[in-house]
């Protein structure tokens, strides 16, 4: 009987601060199930790598010297849709995180994270868990709470093709509402009589819907950067 060996998770790190980058390199290298394939100090180098190499996890800072980390996220999301992307941030301020989520990221890690925590984050992400903070949930709720008539009107005139698909379902809105009030996935699952896995699926779907807004932009940028040849 042939036993399939599990492949390590291919991680690309983009961080301009040498000390932080070094710390992250050490943390990732210490994990047996992860393989750091690229540690880039700027966006361009990372983009060059991403264009030709498949990536499983992208860890990127937002404030890069040559261009915004959001561009790297968009390009990576367009080139490798199954890649999990996490933002490296000092304080996890929500406005920056939200922008990166819109670009295709599915979470963030703090710069003061310890090795164990980072590994846990990455593993959770690969297992399908999408972290979402209450503040982000609240902002998403506000964003999606637009009148349905507006959406219908937009879809009628063809201004928002697929706009209806982007609207949250009532269950997703309910899940988002509980998250915004600080409840954990487990608590939400017990409130709604569903499994934790289903809650996570809802969250993932919400992320996807959010990313729809920037997908066109991502494809455009990826093409501009030469990552996509259509």
């Amino acid at each position, binding site marked *: 009987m042939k036993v399939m060996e599990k492949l390590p998770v291919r991680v690309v790190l983009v961080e301009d601060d040498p000390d932080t980058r070094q710390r992250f390199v050490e943390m990732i290298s210490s994990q047996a199930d992860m393989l750091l394939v690229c540690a880039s100090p700027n966006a361009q180098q990372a983009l060059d790598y991403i264009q030709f190499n498949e990536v499983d996890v992208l860890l990127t800072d937002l404030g890069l010297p040559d261009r915004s980390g959001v561009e790297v996220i968009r390009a990576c999301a367009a080139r490798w849709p199954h890649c999990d992307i996490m933002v490296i941030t000092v304080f996890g301020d*929500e*406005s920056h995180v939200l922008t990166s989520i819109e670009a295709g990221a599915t979470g963030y890690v703090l710069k003061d994270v310890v090795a164990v*925590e980072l590994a846990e984050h990455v593993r959770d992400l690969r297992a399908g868990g999408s972290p979402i903070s209450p*503040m982000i949930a*609240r902002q998403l709720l506000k964003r999606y709470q637009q009148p349905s008539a507006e959406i219908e009107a937009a879809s009628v005139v063809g201004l928002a093709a697929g706009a209806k698909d982007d609207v949250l379902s009532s269950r997703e809105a309910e899940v988002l509402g509980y998250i915004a*009030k*600080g409840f*954990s996935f487990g608590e939400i699952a017990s409130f709604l009589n569903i499994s934790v896995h289903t809650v996570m699926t809802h969250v993932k779907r919400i992320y996807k819907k959010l990313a729809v807004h920037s997908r066109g932009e991502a494809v455009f940028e990826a093409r501009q950067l030469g990552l996509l040849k259509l």
Partner: protein
Amino acid sequence: MFALWLARLLAAFVCIFTFAQAQAQVQEVRSGKFQFDDRDAPPEQITLPHLWDDTRPNYTGLGRYQFTLTALNPEVSNAVFIPRWMHNGEVWFNGSLLYRGGRFVEPVSRHFNRPVYAIIPSQLIRNFDSATLEVRVYGLRRFHSGMTQLYVGPQELLRPRYERLYLWNITGVQVALAVSIGVGLISLVYGLAMGYLPAFILFGLAALALGTRNYSLVVRDIPMPSDWWSAILFTGYGIFITCATLAGLRLADFRSRRVERAIWVAGLSFFFVPLAVFNDTLGGVLPVATALVTPMALLAGVAMFWIAAKKKAVSAMVLGAAMALYGATFMYDALFFLNKRPFDTIFVAHYVAIGAFSVVLIIIVRQHLSVLRRARTLAQNLEGEVARYVLQLNRRFDTLRLVELEAERSETKVLERARMIKEMNDTIGARLSVARAAIVGGGAQSDSLEGPVQAVLDELRLMIDSLDPQATDLLALLGNYRYRMERRLKALGLSLVWSIDTGVSGNGPFSQPLESGVLLRLARFVHECVEHAMQHPHYQQIVLSTALVQTSVDGETVDQLTLCLELKPEFARMRPRLPARLFERGNALNAQLLVREAPMARFITLEMLRQPT
């Protein structure tokens, strides 16, 4: 065909011949004998029409007229036709009563406008070669008393004459007066319905007064004392002139309290005219009074026209002209009472009134409607103007509000800066100083540095969260805190139970968003409680609960937010001392901090009140 035409011509000739023969048979009686009923003097010879008020103006009673008629044709139906008598009377033929009009004693109903027509039964004619016709006339003092010439002859000739006169003297006048009253009512109702328009109401009253007054001249069998009747006639005329004049002045927009009062006094003084007229000592004033009173309508109409012309008020001019026209015809009719018009004359003023006042009503209603239209247009324009000004004012208000907000923002910035400096100094600065001192002292181990540095990072995160412009929701802020702390708490063996009231949501617990400073203090209060639990390993569980209720304080309804942290130790006796700054947080939030010790838990409760907006 020729035969048919011939027959028609023959029939016409026969008709004309018969008519001429019959015409010849009508006797016009113009002479006879007259005798006062209260005197024994022998009858005197008179000629009709005859009036006795010149000789006996103060006499009220009967006068007897006797006429001798030549033989009447008993083969045809004969009748007596008297165009007018004053005021009531009876017709007797050969001692038989043929007709009675009105009474001879008070209260007297007047029949002086009604032509008299009495059919003579044929049996009364058949037995006599000549006939005696007696007419008893009841006269009223100060008025014309007597009768016109009379006609006797075949009914077929007299009846059309009678009917024609009846039409003009009674039916036509009644219709004209009904129209006048109708015009008055319309004007009155219109004036009241349109929100009390004095000109319309006065004009309506004038037309009503005139119509009612004149109606008493043609109405049949309403018994009324003569003096009352006279009072009604004069007062009605006075009211008519007063109301019409005042209406005209209103239409001409001529306002003078003194003039209006004088007109009312003059108009109502007409009531006293009959008292003077019927006063025996002033017996001779009837012509004077008539001469004074009658032209008033004409004079008032002319004066009104003159004032209205000066004011260029068309409707008042029309009313003045109508009134003057009516006054002139009224004077013309009054010539009858001065014996200047035939005794069987037809009064024309009633017919003038109907036309004149109808035209007046139409004109003033049209003018009023036109004014209403203009007013509506003006109102619309004004509304537009007002809306424009309101818009401008709103814009200015918005601009001012922006300036005000900017000022408020600047003030808030200053206050926030001061607050942040204090917070950073008290917490971040203090902890970094501790860390630095440890490093400088050289004895610092990485473990001893981790605590202060971690605290500084936590503090900075709290500050960033509270400064997030979206972070006005306390639960989201607390939730975020939980989200960040959960792994650390788990690593320390502490469980955080989230028992919050989901009603505390939306834009925070209060209808007005919480300021970032308040949010930070609340979050810091929670953090310090959690930190306290983290520092003491015997705590096993933290339960965070919130509640929002409305309560009454000094009669006012306020929101009450309760934030409670229940710290559950492993052993009941373990009660480490709470940090003193927790109580400072309560004071800074203007909230009440309560600590309650239960056997298996410690409850730290913060109660905050806020007035709902």
